[in-house]
């Protein structure tokens, strides 16, 4: 019999009209790293909310055994007092408090008279920081740290609560490769210290490299539990469990027939909006009709900054350089001008920058091209609905109607709304910034298919991605960006992950 620290048995959780979890079973051995995978909507987050007490005991059926004893958590404090700590995808740190204050928030180190003992707070924080390998002063405000370091602060905070079971929800989603590697290392070290970890992740390569066992969920049910130790479980094997079938290929095939040049960017230079440094330095690149061009770069290389500054100067200052559409020089001093010149930019953060989450699909689809639906400033609202209906059909947006509020759609469907919105402006070139971030495998494939359809129709696509396999699978050519400079361009036939990494890491010293 295994020594299980956690057993969740026959958990069923229903919301009005839907069963989010049905008879889900989860067993986690003491001292292992256990991965949970599943497509979006498979029930991973719901299961973790049941475990951590967000959905209190009584609101679900089934039983939870922790350390062999049945537990009934009434709330997060309850589960935390047992040593179960969950770190959410969206980090929950207070930006203007210091690292130490954040670590002990709600759990303050108090001295005589109930006042906070600052010496002990900072000294204890320093110890915790050392144990997660973060070399920062505990009094530094969290807002000054990057996402990777903030993640480490969250883990230090969990350690301060004498955590036995640490749950990480998509811990590397926002991290670059180097920070991700650090984090995975840290998880291995924590495991060796006897802390059990549950990790929810979409990144299957991380799961195969780090997890000891994996539970696969699909449509609110447990599909299988895989033992990873032998190294025989491949990514393809996990995907088969998640989607219930083999994906013949991650990336749909496309015959590449590049046509005439659509967009050329020459000698593009952008200064940081507040600091005195260049974030893009003399970048020159072009994209043709019927072509997907990739931009690879580590975090901070200036990929998004390049794209946004081209898109109507939405980022940075002192922008210089030239833009050509179809060989003719254009000015795109505002987003409206960029759109009317046939440029579209789908942001990497669709919730913050891409969508009006409280509005319906219809209003979001029309939002960038509203003038096309209007005469003398009057919007033709039935025509607007028809446009949205067409998008919903063409893009296979899964929603009851175009009046459905966008905030309630899954990530993949939201991304399809973003694409619909930009396609309605009828652009010649689409700049897609991390188009598949936070989207499940099935929806990714759909997005790839849509991209291929667009280039087959003669559009030009610029694709920015942190996932090199995605760039290698989708692009015709890949530019590498490092420290704001273009360090290379490779036809996909000559590109490998290793060569791209080499170019992405080249010339890393900060420019000027």
């Amino acid at each position, binding site marked *: 019999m295994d020594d299980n620290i956690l057993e969740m048995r026959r958990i069923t959780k229903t*919301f*009005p*009209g839907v069963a989010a979890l049905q008879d889900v079973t989860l067993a986690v051995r003491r001292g292992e790293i256990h991965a949970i995978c599943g497509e979006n909507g498979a029930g991973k987050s719901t299961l973790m909310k049941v475990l951590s007490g967000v959905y209190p005991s009584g609101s679900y059926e089934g039983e939870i055994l922790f350390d062999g004893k049945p537990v009934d958590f009434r709330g997060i404090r309850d589960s935390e007092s047992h040593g179960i700590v969950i770190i959410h995808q969206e980090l929950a740190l207070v930006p203007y408090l210091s690292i130490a204050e954040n670590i002990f928030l709600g759990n303050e180190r108090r001295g005589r008279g109930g006042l906070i003992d600052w010496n002990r707070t900072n000294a204890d924080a320093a110890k915790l920081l050392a144990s997660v390998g973060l070399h920062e002063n505990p009094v530094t405000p969290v807002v000054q740290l990057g996402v990777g370091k903030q993640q480490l602060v969250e883990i230090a905070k969990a350690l301060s609560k004498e955590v036995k079971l640490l749950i990480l929800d998509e811990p590397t989603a926002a991290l670059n490769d180097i920070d991700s590697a650090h984090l995975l290392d840290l998880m291995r070290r924590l495991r060796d210290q006897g802390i059990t970890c549950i990790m929810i992740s979409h990144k299957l390569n991380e799961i195969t490299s780090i997890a000891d066992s994996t539970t696969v969920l699909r449509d609110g049910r447990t599909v299988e539990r895989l033992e990873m130790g032998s190294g025989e479980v491949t990514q393809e094997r996990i995907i088969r469990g998640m989607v219930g079938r083999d994906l013949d290929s991650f990336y749909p095939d496309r015959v590449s027939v590049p046509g005439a040049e659509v967009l050329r960017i020459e000698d593009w230079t952008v200064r940081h909006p507040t600091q005195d440094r260049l974030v893009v330095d003399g970048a020159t690149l072009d994209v043709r009709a019927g072509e997907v061009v990739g931009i690879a770069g580590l975090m901070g290389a200036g990929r998004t900054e390049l794209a946004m500054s081209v*898109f*109507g100067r*939405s980022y940075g200052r002192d922008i210089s350089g030239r833009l050509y559409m179809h060989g003719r020089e254009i000015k795109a001093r*505002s*987003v*409206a001008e*960029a*759109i009317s010149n046939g440029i579209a*930019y789908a*942001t990497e953060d669709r919730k*913050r*920058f*891409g*969508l*009006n*989450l*409280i*509005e319906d699909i219809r*209003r979001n689809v*029309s*939002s*960038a091209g*509203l*003038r096309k639906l*209007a005469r003398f*400033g*009057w*919007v033709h*609202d*039935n*025509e607007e*609905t*028809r446009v949205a209906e067409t998008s919903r059909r063409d893009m296979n947006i899964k929603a*009851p*109607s175009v*009046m*459905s509020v966008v905030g*309630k759609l899954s990530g993949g469907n939201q991304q399809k709304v973003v694409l619909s*919105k930009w396609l309605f402006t009828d652009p010649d070139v689409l700049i897609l910034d991390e188009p598949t971030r936070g989207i499940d495998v099935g929806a990714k494939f759909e997005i790839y298919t849509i991209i291929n359809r667009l280039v087959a129709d003669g559009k030009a696509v610029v694709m920015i991605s942190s996932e090199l396999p995605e760039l290698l699978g989708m692009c015709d050519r890949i530019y590498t960006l490092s420290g704001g400079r273009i360090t290379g361009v490779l036809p996909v036939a000559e590109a490998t992950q290793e060569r791209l990494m080499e170019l992405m890491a080249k010339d890393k010293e900060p420019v000027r």
Partner: protein
Amino acid sequence: MTSTKPSSAAKGAPAESAPAAALHVGTSDPRTLIMNNLRQSGIFVALVVIVALFAFLTDGLSLSPGNITNIVLQYSYILVLAIGMVIVIIGGHIDLSVGSVVALTGAVSAVVVIRQGQPWWVGVIAAVAVGLAVGAWHGFWVAYVGIPAFIVTLAGMLLFRGLTLRVLDNISLSPFPTEYNQIAAGFLNGLIGGDGYDAFTLLIGGIAVAGYVVSGFRTRVARIRYQQPVESFALFVARMALVGAVVMWFAWQLANARGLPIVLIILAALVLVYGLLTRRTVFGRQVYAIGGNLSAAMLSGVKVRTVNFWIFVNMGFLSAVAGIIFSSRSNGAQPAAGNMFELDAIAAAFIGGAAVTGGVGTVVGAMVGGLIMAVMSNGMQLMGVDQSMQSVVKGLVLLVAVAFDVYNKRRAGAAR
């Protein structure tokens, strides 16, 4: 959440001409209809309940012809302010200065007309010009300098109150000439006679109902042509009949009192124009987009600064309209005029379903919210309720209305 699907009847009969189809397609499933309009119908129901409650408590006095006319005259300027305020709130801002701007525009008008002896329309133009200038001032600071509207208009509240005192030299000015006083106190009546009632008022009511029915039917036909969900024809007729009956009853009450108040015509025109402006124009859509997600609006090509600027210019304009109506009604200008008006206007918008975070709200909702406040205040005055208790009740109603909204949203969120 329940959502409407395109009605199967409409889908099944694409060949049929839309006007003919308009007679017999559509859903009458009450669940679908209620769920779709929960928030909207909620405030209408609340208004009906409150009207009924005070009719009961005052033995029908609150629904008497004289009192109905009174409510229109007494609260019209708050409703005018609420139109502008709901647009400001949808855009994600707030305007604390409108009370002071009402005072200032009224004061300028009074100085021009009473002290300088200019004709009444010069006063109107002067007041509107001052309102637009104030709006442009606010718009400049909010849109182009980037100061939060709360601060800008708080400053404006002090600033324009002070200027009002300067303009009036700390004294009241009155009375206005009759023409000016007619704006808020005048009636259109007797134009086509009537026996104990004013036939003209009934005629205008009839025209309004006819216009509502025709535009309702045209909308329905267009929606069917585009295979949009519509209510069943019986329900459509019932809705038209209900609205028609309420409007005609209202007109009948007015006709039996003093006729059609001029200020009601102004208010109706503003509601119509601004209702269309917010729902059907690019500008209106952009206001919602900015309030819903500023960054996304910016990256969709919305000229955020321009839109924000005009939101405040518009608020200044409507403050001037309210200032003219108020000074006309009180037949003079006082240094303390318009005190706390901003709070009534803000409360009307929020009771009417606007969201504190922006992006949500309707002009019609704000009107209903304003009417709820108006009927309550008026009813309590009729009952002789103490001023202090009136304030307590109004405060609680605002709180409960918004709490109901928050509760609804949370429930909708949890149902997911």
